[in-house]
């Protein structure tokens, strides 16, 4: 018999999809039985009370959570998000229900043994409920009490060699794709760069001094599996400078049906024979491809790295050999409004240890944003408010046509008076001699 009646939540289990309600009920049952003999350090019925408060919120149509607080671990200004319930007498199990963010391993590689250990800690000292992974990429541990925070932190850092992630006005946990570890399209070692910058900027990650959140994300190629271009204040997106490597024999094999297109995905239904014109050539956004007399030709200088042809025919087309990354800045994806894509700041930069050139760009941006940014203003908003030109000045960069997304729609770059011969003042009488009113 459940502790609280939850008819509204029960209805959510009726669909064909997996339900978080069923998951929480399962955990509630497991905690009640406690077959493993865990010495629970927070109320055993935390999951029942979580269901209860959620049911009440559904019934009232408003939240019963209060978020925020001074909770945290000593010396860290992020990684713990305080949450309290405003009906602690009715739901004592979730009177405190703090979230902990754990910095995920690069590319989210971990062993099942690590997962078991993490879950054992969390079963004992938290609710047992996790979110693998949050939108920031972190391992999210949902729901514990204030006295458990230091205990969990000690165990994570000392026993499992893990650290908390970022929250609040910090550098958020840097997130990367699997990169060269598993993907042939990766143009740089995303995990190496992500790890290096995570270590380099520990102070920014744990001790908040920014106007607002700040995100780094690393995508090995323009397919952008981490969606850095849409949500990172600084997105590092792999690219190449030379030509796409082209294997005409493999192209012929795709056309002849020997290789399945798209690496064999979408194979649940018969789409008919592969049509290179319809499925590749006509879909090229810059029209830089041609297929004639059984030969594929690419005008590489027109290619904008959309990745479509490479994704459809991975055995025939490969990324170039002169690789690095593009740096885009100012993206944000707030829930309510104001989403903005990244703007290109550095068209191409080599990604080589010790990444000094990249760090110089980052630190110049931070110096500008920390001084000029208003409270709760993201980098993208500051760029809009003060102009792209100010960002270029802060980064000691010269304007480049590649930074202009669409001519005449985003006139970022203006002449300054000292760059114009004679300045902005002119002799109007001299002008009128040659130009009638």
């Amino acid at each position, binding site marked *: 018999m459940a502790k609280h009646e939850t008819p509204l939540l029960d209805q959510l289990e009726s669909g064909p999809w997996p339900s978080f309600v069923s998951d929480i009920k399962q955990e509630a049952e497991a905690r009640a039985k406690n077959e493993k003999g865990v010495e629970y350090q927070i109320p055993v019925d935390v999951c029942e009370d979580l269901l209860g408060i959620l049911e009440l919120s559904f019934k009232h149509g408003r939240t019963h959570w*209060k*978020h*925020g*607080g*001074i*909770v*945290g671990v000593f*010396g*860290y*200004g*992020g990684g*713990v*998000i*305080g949450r*309290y319930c405003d009906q602690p007498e009715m739901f004592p199990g979730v009177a405190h229900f703090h*979230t902990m963010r754990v910095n995920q391993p690069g590319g989210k590689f971990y062993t099942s043994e690590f997962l078991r250990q993490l879950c054992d800690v969390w079963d004992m000292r938290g609710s047992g409920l996790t979110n693998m992974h949050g939108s920031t990429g972190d391992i999210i541990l949902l729901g514990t009490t204030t006295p458990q925070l230091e205990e969990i932190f000690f165990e994570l850092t000392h026993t499992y060699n893990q650290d908390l992630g970022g*929250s*609040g*006005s*910090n550098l958020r946990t840097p997130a990367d794709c699997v990169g060269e570890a598993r993907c042939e399209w990766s143009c740089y070692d995303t995990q190496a760069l992500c790890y290096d910058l995570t270590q380099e900027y520990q*102070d920014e990650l744990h*001790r*908040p*001094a*920014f*106007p*607002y*959140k700040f995100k780094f994300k690393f995508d090995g190629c323009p397919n952008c599996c981490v969606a850095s271009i849409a949500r990172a204040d600084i997105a590092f997106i792999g690219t190449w400078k030379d030509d796409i490597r082209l294997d005409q024999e493999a192209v012929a094999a795709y056309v002849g049906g020997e290789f399945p297109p798209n690496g064999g995905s979408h194979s649940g239904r018969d789409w008919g024979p592969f049509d290179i014109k319809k499925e590749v050539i006509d879909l090229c956004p810059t029209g830089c491809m041609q297929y004639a007399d059984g030969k594929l030709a690419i005008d590489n200088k027109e290619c904008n790295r959309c990745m479509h042809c490479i994704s459809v025919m991975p055995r025939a087309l490969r990324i170039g050999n002169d690789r690095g990354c593009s740096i885009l800045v100012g993206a944000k994806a707030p829930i309510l409004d104001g989403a903005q894509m990244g703007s290109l700041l550095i068209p191409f930069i080599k990604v080589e240890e010790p990444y000094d050139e990249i760090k110089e760009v980052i630190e110049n941006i931070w*110096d500008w944003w*920390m*001084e000029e940014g208003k*409270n*709760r203003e993201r980098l993208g908003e500051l760029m809009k408010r003060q102009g792209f030109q100010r960002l270029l000045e802060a980064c000691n960069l010269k304007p480049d046509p590649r930074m202009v997304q669409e001519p005449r729609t985003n006139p970022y770059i203006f002449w300054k008076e000292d760059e114009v011969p004679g300045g902005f003042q002119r002799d109007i009488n001299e002008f009128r001699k040659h130009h009638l009113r």
Partner: protein
Amino acid sequence: MDQAEATEKIVAALQKKKSKTKFYFNELAKILDLKPRAAKKLINIMVTDEVLEYWSSGSTSLYGLKGVGKQAAAEHEDE
């Protein structure tokens, strides 16, 4: 500016403000009249020394004198 002087300045300035107990980082940097990076070093030590404490809504971080103000207020109630 040495640490003791900075701490004194911050404590005096924050104690004077009766209407609020949580402050953005740049308000503290302004009190110290320092660039953000220089101010951060001193302010971090004040947190370690338990003069100041962090307050976080989850998305935004603020600073307050330790033990002063609401401990677990929702963000909108604080502003």
